[in-house]
């Protein structure tokens, strides 16, 4: 009895597991059950049952309620879809003046708004793109095509690549110093020489539009959330879902609202990039010491002065870290939004992957990663930069960077002009190196891949077969074998044991949504892949992290590596794995593992680091050896922080699993990808995205609640 009381938590967990397994064995697999592949769900099948809700007919395969819940939410995607179409095509028709036909035309309001927004976005993107690359569109926007025909000289010339490279170098020097300046210069030269200039600048122009807009909106919303509790409460659930929502899933509704192209990509990128900006703005403003705010008030600031002269400058660092986050999200989206027609490196990458041209994909991937690393380092340097006092410097010292840039500008133009004589008849290499005229290493890489395949094919294949047959298939079968009711009992029980009734309710709601959607089976497959990835990632991450922690320089080095890896757009991870493992589940899982190991390692090191020095010394003085110190002191204290790492690992793994659909998986991601090419896909895509987000949120809720309690218990909250 005494034992039972002491370890009551363990027995509660055991009891929960016993119930779970009892339910699993008690509920038989229905004979008619099979995992439905491919299009089968959309084909009308006489075995299907139907129900009608709110005028929408939902078809599904009926099973025992204990085995799989009926898809009572099956009407939701259809309804979302219909409402979107209604809003776009029939809602609030109004008269609008049409410039082209010079007459009033009746159009639904939303369609008109969408058109105007589209035109506006397209204009900005084209403007920046043409500053970098040259073109006609901007001038056409102000005049007409006839004007261009009449005046063939009227064209934005575009900047020679030398000027952009010089600009990037000077800016890097100003922000951080020599090291970054050299890196920036080399990156730009590399891009140019390898013939990736045009797509790189297309991507860059896309980011130069999306990032500032996301920043402005994010900052504005962050400020209003800071000022009003009500706004914060309204934003909070959206922020939460957006953090775990796969970026893929948002593409589909955007497709319906804004069509295909760069403008749609920018808008969708904003939707994904604004939430982290809001969060960091809020975080920064919250972290301002109350006395600074009071000092501002006592200086007689009105609300406006207080916000812009006191609060925002004081929270500068966090807000600029937000900018950094925004830029990173933009890069990630630059690739993903290639699915809806964004031009640039992402598009090339996607195309190359589609053609299985690993060499080309690698080149594009390397380019986009280099630019991402560069912009990441630049924005971080900006955030950490402390301003210096310029008052007593001379004009030249104050403006030397601007002067240098002006000089570089002139030199660049002269060089480009000389180039027109040097390269008569061919391309002006001092202006822009065209895509196919640069040095290409694609062949080399492709041959390398072929060589790897020929040499190691047997081993890779053997490993692949072993993994799939011995590990993955059984695991997947086990997950699919779980009856819905048993799963819900397990999850809700865990919620109750960890966070009490409140947590149980939240988790129950999230799980029910997935269970009642038509994609429970798929969600199980997603979960199985994510679980496998997370387990392996955590094993690797915790081990590597712990080992690296033993030496200060190793830990620093590892964190640096994590930083760089995290900068890569997630799609880039697919390239090397496809190179080595071809198109199999193994590829996806390895990409998942590599990607998800980053946060696992990082949080392990950071967690161990966060153990106070005083405790180290106290432990050493009590005569513990290194191993004892690790197991008795550092691990228990670092564990809550490491669990937050687990949380991140899960989110990362889910993202990658969904992206893995591009290689070919049979989970929720496959359906999201399918929804992209489906006329009625908007509702499906969104609902699927919410399902994935909810899987993430279930774990998020459980882990956060546990960590919060544990931290309170340890007194390190």
């Amino acid at each position, binding site marked *: 009895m005494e034992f039972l009381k002491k370890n009551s938590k363990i027995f509660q967990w055991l009891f929960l597991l016993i119930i779970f397994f009892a339910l699993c064995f008690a509920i038989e697999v229905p004979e008619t059950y099979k995992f439905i592949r491919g299009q089968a769900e959309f084909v009308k099948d006489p075995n299907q049952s139907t129900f009608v809700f709110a005028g929408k007919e939902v078809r599904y395969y009926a099973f025992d309620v204990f085995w799989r819940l009926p898809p009572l939410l099956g009407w939701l995607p259809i309804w979302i879809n219909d409402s979107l179409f209604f809003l776009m095509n029939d809602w609030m028709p109004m008269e609008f003046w049409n410039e082209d036909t010079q007459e009033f035309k009746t159009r639904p309001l939303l369609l008109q708004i969408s058109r105007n927004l589209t035109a506006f976005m397209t204009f900005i993107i084209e403007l920046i793109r043409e500053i970098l690359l040259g073109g006609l569109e901007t001038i056409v926007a102000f005049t007409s095509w006839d004007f261009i025909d009449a005046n063939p000289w009227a064209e934005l010339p575009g900047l020679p690549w030398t000027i952009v490279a010089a600009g990037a170098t000077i800016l890097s020097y100003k922000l951080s110093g020599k090291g970054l300046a050299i890196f920036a210069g080399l990156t730009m030269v590399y891009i140019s020489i390898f013939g990736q200039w045009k797509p790189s600048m297309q991507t860059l122009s896309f980011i130069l539009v999306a990032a500032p807009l996301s920043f402005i909106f994010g900052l504005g919303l962050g400020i209003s959330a800071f000022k009003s509790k009500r706004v914060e409460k309204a934003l909070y659930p959206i922020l939460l879902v957006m953090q775990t929502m796969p970026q893929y899933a948002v593409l589909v509704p955007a497709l319906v609202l804004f069509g295909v192209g760069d403008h749609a990509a920018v808008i969708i990128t904003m939707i994904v990039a604004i939430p982290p900006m809001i969060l960091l703005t809020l975080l920064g403003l919250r972290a301002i010491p109350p006395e600074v705010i*009071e000092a501002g008030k006592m200086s*007689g*600031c009105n609300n406006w*002065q207080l916000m812009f*002269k006191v609060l925002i*400058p004081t929270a500068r660092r966090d807000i600029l870290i937000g900018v950094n986050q925004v830029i990173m999200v933009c890069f990630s989206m630059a690739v993903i939004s290639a699915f809806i027609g964004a031009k640039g490196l992402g598009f090339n990458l996607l195309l190359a992957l589609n053609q299985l041209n690993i060499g080309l994909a690698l080149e594009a991937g390397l380019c986009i990663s280099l630019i991402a690393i560069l912009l990441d380092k630049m924005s971080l340097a900006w955030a950490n930069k402390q301003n210096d006092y310029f008052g007593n410097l001379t004009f030249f010292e104050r403006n030397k960077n601007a002067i240098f840039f002006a000089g570089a500008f002139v030199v660049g133009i002269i060089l480009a002009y000389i180039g027109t004589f040097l390269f008569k008849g061919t391309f002006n290499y001092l202006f822009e190196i065209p895509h196919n005229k640069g040095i290409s290493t694609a062949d080399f890489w492709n041959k390398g891949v072929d060589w790897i395949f020929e040499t190691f094919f047997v081993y890779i294949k053997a490993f692949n077969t072993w993994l799939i047959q011995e590990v993955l298939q059984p695991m997947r079968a086990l997950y699919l074998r779980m009856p819905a009711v048993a799963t819900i009992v397990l999850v809700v029980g865990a919620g109750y044991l960890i966070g009490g009734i409140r947590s149980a309710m939240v988790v129950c709601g999230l799980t029910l949504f997935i269970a009642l959607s038509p994609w429970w089976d798929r969600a199980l497959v997603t979960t199985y892949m994510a679980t496998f990835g997370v387990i392996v990632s955590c094993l690797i991450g915790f081990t590597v992290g712990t080992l690296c922690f033993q030496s200060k320089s190793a830990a620093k080095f590892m964190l640096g590596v994590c930083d760089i890896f995290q900068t890569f757009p997630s799609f880039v991870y697919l390239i090397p794995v496809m190179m080595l493992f071809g198109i199999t589940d193994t590829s996806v899982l390895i990409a998942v593992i590599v990607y998800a190991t980053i946060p696992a390692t990082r949080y392990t090191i950071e967690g161990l680091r966060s153990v106070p020095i005083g405790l180290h010394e106290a432990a050493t003085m009590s005569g513990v050896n290194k191993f004892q110190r690790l197991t008795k002191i550092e691990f228990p204290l670092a564990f809550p922080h490491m669990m937050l790492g687990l949380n991140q690992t899960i989110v990362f793994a889910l993202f990658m699993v969904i992206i893995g659909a591009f290689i070919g998986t049979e989970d929720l991601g496959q359906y999201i990808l399918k929804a992209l090419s489906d006329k009625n896909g908007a509702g499906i895509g969104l609902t699927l995205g919410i399902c994935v987000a909810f899987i993430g949120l279930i774990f998020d809720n459980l882990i956060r609640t546990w960590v919060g309690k544990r931290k309170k218990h340890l007194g390190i909250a």
Partner: protein
Amino acid sequence: MSDTVIKCESVYKIFGQNAKKMLQEANGNVDAKTFQENGCIVGVNNASFEVAKGEMLVVMGLSGSGKSTLLRCISRLTDATGGKIFIEGQDLLELNNKELIDLRRNKMGMVFQSFALLPHKTVVENIAFPLQIKGINTDESISKAMDMVKLVGLDGRENYFPRELSGGQQQRVGIARSLAVEPDIWFLDEPFSALDPLIRKEMQDEFLRLQDKLQKTIMFITHDFDEALKLADRIAIMKDGVIEQLDTPAKIVLNPATEYVRKFTEEVPREKVLLIEDVMDQSTSNELGDLRVSKDEIIENVAEKILTQEKTVGVIDKNNKIIGSINPTKIINTVFGGRKNGN
């Protein structure tokens, strides 16, 4: 005392929902315990006092005693739950936002415990900040701020950023900033608490020098009783939101009103606090010796002289008129007596 600058009439500050309603129902009889049971925390409980022009009122109390809350009610950084506050006759709680901002821009200055400097501005820009907020142009505000830099002895460091200064220097900036608009009323919220003891003493002396020159009306918050004794014209001792005693330092040391106040006074070296005037006999007896001491001397400075006398010593005022007497036994009683056993 001349005209009143700050006047508080039974000011209450109660945190929590329904605070206002509960205060009305309590009918001026606020009991912290019953409020706490109902989810309210009493910050300031029935504070009434006046501060005259040029006077320095030090509010002393331990953490959680409500002293900072009281200051924030008077600067209206928080709104008082009940009672009235008058600044130079104006009802503070009736001011609208614009009038309040005007008042702060022209009449009030405040110094904070953690300095609360703006990290992105240099020393001189920090000091010029309230002036610029007021709408004074850059050149004029900077030149005025430079005067302030000189006043607090930071010349040569005006272009440093706060992060490059030591704690004491940062607080000098804080003081200069609060003085930049030449306010009549000066609030200081534990300005020296975050400083090392040696720097603290230096800053206190500096502060007394400044006050000697500027003669502001001051509310000074501290948790350090010695600091309060050193600086104050009058001291208000607070506990759990209630002002336990409000009096001059000497009277508090000689006649602590409550047990709580007495605990603070026990360890105070009286000879360093009390003046001859505070302990002398009013009667001018005939058997005076030759020695005369001024009534404004601190006991410590003249104790040796008096104790070597056998006869009673005469006490004189500024005009050398004898207004009282003091004998050596009185000095011994004051310094050594009444420590452990009450009086």
